[in-house]
Each structure stands twice: as structure tokens, then as C-alpha cells.
């Protein structure tokens, strides 16, 4: 069974952490993954940096710009991840925009993911419709799950379609917002979480965007199977040592 599905089936209150590969330093990728695996984290999203990350806020864009300046690229990431499966069994997801993947070659990308032990992908600008028509067989062939986003604006009909195509979790965007933009969840957001939960989807739900501390994390896990943290972790890395990642995770877990 895919490592992501195993975690989704066996764990509650899932914490998934995003970081940008190549940030703060080019060679931090392995160190960050190892440190996260040692702490109380259930999944890791490795951000493949892109020059024009439309769906991300300023924190992640800045970290991407620095990562690219440091020399991070697709080829390099796979080299850095070459031996990662000797060290950890934690589910690993690559989150990246579609153009770098397209230039690398979608099939070659999927194969490389499988070779190093990546379990799934989040590609915000590859819509579910195009994925289903064109790329799903490639992902399936290489054992990769693909996770899709839904937002408060996504219609029930489309959510059902996304649920049908999904084979991992559904990434529930907490609000009308790019990453890192909110600090606490309000009435409207909680209603949205409830509405989705009532739909009885087959896919598990993870809430992302705007989760930055133990109280937003708590709100999220009350309404879903878990939460994804990105910007807050990037901000942590900016000011703290990689060895202290465990402390960040503890703070979130509360």
C-alpha cells in the first residue's frame, strides 16, 4: 500500500509539513526531512521551487526565489533524494508547479519520483480535468498518488468529481486565500468545514492554508483528518536551526 494511504488509514490528527527544497541552503533537503521524520510529523511535502508560484503567498515565494538562487532545480532534487528511503519511511509528497515538471518530462518525472521513493504529488496548476484525461495513467504506472485542492468556492458537483478522481487525500483550502494569509479561523470557515464533512466523501480531508499555531491546528483537526503547515514552517526555518525543528512541531501539536 502507498505510504500516504497507510498513514491516512491508521492515523488521526495528521500533521503534514511543507518546506521548500533548497531553502534556506541548497543542501538542507535531506537534513530537514530527517529532522521532521524524527519529530511527531506524519507526512512531508517537499516544495519544488518555481519562479512564479501563483497559488502561494509571499513567504513561500520568497523561499522559492532564494532556493532557485541557491541552485535548486528538478535534477538536483532527485539527486538529493537518492538515498532518502534508507533513512525514513515517512510519506513524501512533492509539491510543485506544472511547468518545471513539463520541461523535465512528465513521464521522466514520475519515474524519477518512483525511483527515489516519492509517494505522491500536489500540482496546484494542473487541474483535475486535464490530469484525468491526460496524465493519470502515468501517475498510476509509477505508483504516485495525486492530491487535489478544494476551496470554499468549489461546487458540490466538482467536489464529488475530485473525490472520484482522488486516490489520496483531498487538500481542503481553508479560505479564499493564498498560503500564509490568515491567523485564525472564523465562523464561515468552520461552517465550510462542516459542509464538506457532511458530504461523506471517500477521500480523507487535510486542511491547509493559514495554519500557523496550535489553535488553528486544533480547529483544523476537529474538522478533518489533519492539517498541512507551510508558510509558518518556512518562517521558523528562517530564524531557527534545523536541529530545533522538533520544538516547532511540539508547539503546533500543543
Amino acid at each position, binding site marked *: 500500500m502507498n505510504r500516504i494511504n497507510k498513514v491516512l488509514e491508521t492515523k488521526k490528527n495528521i500533521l503534514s509539513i511543507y518546506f521548500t527544497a533548497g531553502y534556506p541552503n541548497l543542501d538542507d533537503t535531506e537534513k530537514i526531512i530527517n529532522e521532521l521524520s524524527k519529530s511527531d510529523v506524519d507526512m512531508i511535502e517537499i516544495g519544488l521551487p*518555481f*519562479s*512564479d508560484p*501563483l*497559488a502561494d*503567498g*509571499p513567504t513561500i*515565494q*520568497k523561499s522559492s*526565489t532564494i532556493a*532557485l538562487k541557491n541552485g535548486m*532545480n*528538478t*535534477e538536483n532534487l532527485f539527486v538529493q533524494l537518492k538515498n532518502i528511503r534508507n533513512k525514513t519511511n515517512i510519506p513524501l509528497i512533492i509539491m510543485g*508547479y*506544472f*511547468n*518545471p*515538471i*513539463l*520541461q*523535465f518530462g512528465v513521464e521522466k518525472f514520475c519515474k524519477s519520483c518512483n525511483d527515489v521513493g516519492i509517494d505522491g504529488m500536489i500540482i*496546484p*496548476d*494542473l*487541474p*483535475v480535468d*486535464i490530469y484525468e484525461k491526460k496524465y493519470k495513467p502515468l501517475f498510476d504506472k509509477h505508483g504516485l498518488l495525486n492530491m*487535489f*485542492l*478544494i*476551496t470554499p*468556492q*468549489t*461546487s458540490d458537483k*466538482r467536489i464529488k468529481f475530485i473525490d472520484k478522481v482522488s486516490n489520496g487525500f483531498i487538500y481542503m*483550502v481553508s479560505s*479564499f*486565500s*493564498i498560503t500564509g*494569509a490568515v491567523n485564525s479561523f472564523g465562523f464561515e470557515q468552520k461552517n465550510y468545514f462542516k459542509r464538506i464533512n457532511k458530504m461523506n466523501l471517500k477521500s480523507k480531508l487535510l486542511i491547509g492554508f493559514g495554519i500557523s499555531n496550535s489553535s488553528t491546528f486544533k480547529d483544523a483537526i476537529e474538522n478533518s483528518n489533519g492539517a498541512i503547515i507551510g508558510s509558518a514552517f518556512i518562517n521558523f526555518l528562517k530564524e531557527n536551526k534545523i536541529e530545533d525543528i522538533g520544538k516547532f512541531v511540539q508547539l503546533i501539536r500543543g
Partner: protein
Amino acid sequence: MKISFNVNKMGYYGDFGGAYIPEMMYSNIEELRSKYLDICSEKKFQSEFNELLKQYVGRPTPLYFAERLSKKYNTKIYLKREDLCHTGAHKINNTIGQILLAKRLGKSRIIAETGAGQHGVATATVCALMGIKCIVYMGEVDISRQAPNVARMKMLGAEVKPAISGSKTLKDATNEAIRDWINNPVDTHYIIGSVVGPHPYPDMVARFQSVIGDEVKKQLKELEGTKKPSYVIACVGGGSNAAGLFYPYLDDEKVKIICVEAAGKGIDTGMSAATSILGKEGIIHGAKTLLMQSTDGQITEPYSISAGLDYPGVGPMHANLFRTKRGEFISITDKEAMEWGLSLSRLEGIIPAIETSHAFAVLDKKKFKKDDILVFNCSGRGDKDLDTYIDYFKL
């Protein structure tokens, strides 16, 4: 069946186009996609649109026979005078269309991106006209380069927000506008200024600009007894003025299409915006098209002396014109364009925008026959570029 060079039902021009958008944009794009054709074909919409184009923009713009230019090059040269439109360029045809559309969609807030500021001014203008709130994203670098247009937008009541990410130019302003839209999906309409972005934008903007080509057809019939020129010629950054001129001729291969790109300091100098030569198929701002990028798929910063042409991609319509060879692509350096700015001023008494000057330089690159009819899109006037002309020619 004959191949069409126009958009298909799925939003593609051949291999190019589509909507590669994050889910956060889906509801907005889907709303537009499902409604734009119906709204635009409403009688009331059309009469309002045409009335504003006539009374407010000053259409139809003349199709002017450039006698001295024609004599010099021994061919028949017509200029479609979009430079005479209100606000000084063709850009306003599109913003009029989109503001009427936004009103019908019930939107109360308008956002736009701008490079040189022309589209920003055209958007601020129609927002003032309709009394709708307007926010224009502009790269921090461009804000300092284009002070007069920033001032115009402010006078018109728009808020100009600096894009401080990435290279701080047009592509980043576009990113910021898209982010704004993601954060404000309910009350906001995003007026994109060119035939770029996810479907239906390229088609919608092309339709609003197609008034240019439609007028040419009528005017040429009166002047020359034929609706069909031998060539239609326009500069291409994102490609909206070109799309507007070409639109009614796309599938009539007797009319040849020439797209003129900015070579900047030269194709091989690393300071260029000639996307057809330097670009590769990829995805930018939600569309599959040709774009300038690193081998790793990072979008690279283009360069041209003319701010309206330094976009790292071209619209999907143009990418398809290039790939299918329906259009001929010619690139013109800064120097050639600047000299043509001066030539057109002295030969015809028309000071063109530097973008527009690029198109005319084709006359030195290609031999035309005596009885060929050439229609150039004289897309904008040079007032906004005076500082650049002053610097360049030490006027």
C-alpha cells in the same frame, strides 16, 4: 474539414491555450467561461459596447493611406489609426468590453495588471467612467520607469499597488493580480490586458479587439474595392493589437499575417523578448503557450526598450500562428524600432509608440510588391515614450 486558426470549444488554438489554473481560480474562470459568449452576444450588450466605442473611444478609427511611406517603399501602405483612440492606444477597446461584462456579472471591484501603464490607464479610465473601484498592479521597477502613467491612473481614481515579488515587472504584476483574485473571488473581476492567461481570456480579449479588423474590412472595401489586404502586420508582446487586426482574417489564408516581435538588443544577447525564437512550449499565467524559460522550466525575464513588448510569453493564438506557419514572425531590435519611430514621425507626421514602431521596421526586412496592400496596426501613440525618445535621440 478546413483547419481553423481560431479557438476551439475546449479553449485551445491547436496545441496551445487551455486553463492551467489552481483550483482557487476555478470558480471565477468557470463563471466567465460559461457566461462570456452569451453576455457578449446580447443585443443590449452589443449596442452599449458599440455606442461607447463610438462616442467615448472615438471609433471607427481611420484607415489612413500613408502616401509618402508607400511611395518610398513602392507598395500600398495603410495605417489603422488605433493611436487615435481615447487614452492613446487600442487597449481601451478591451477594457470597455470587460467593464460592461463585469457589470453584468455583478462585480463591484476591478483589478488589472500593467507593464508600461497603458492597460492600467485604460482600465482606470473605464472604471472612472462606470464609477467602479479599481486596483492596478504594477511592478515596482515599472512604477519608477513610467511615472506619467502612474500619475494618470491616480488622477483617474485608481489605486496603484506595487508588485514587489520576483523581477518586479509585468509578469510579477500579473502574478499579484491573480493572487488578489484568489483572495477576492466573489466581488472582483480581473481585466487582463492582452490575449494571454487562461481560457476564456485570450478569446474574450481577441473578440473585444476584433473591432479593429472588422473596421479594416469595411474601410478597405471603400478605399480599394476589396476587403482583403495582402498583408496584415502588427507588433506582438502578449498580442492583443495583433489579434484584433488579424481576427476576421485568421482563416482566410489569402491574407498573409506578419507578427513583429521585439529582438531587444539582439536575439543572442540575452536581452530580448523574441518569444517565437527564444521560447519553448510551457505554461505561463494559466495558458499553454510559447514562453521564455530556463531549461529547468523557470520563467525568464525578457527585455525590450518598449515596456509593452517585454512579456516572456505570447498569447496562445500567436503561438499557434507560429507553429502552423500561418503567421510569419519577424524580430526587430531596439535600434531599428527607435529609428522607425523617427522615420514615421518625419514621413507621415505620426509619432508612434515604440511598440508600434517595431511593426513598421518590417518594411526594411521584406520586399513587398507594388500592388500589395499592407495594413499596419498603428496601435498606439508615442506620447508615453517621449522620455525614451528624448534620451535616445538626445532631442
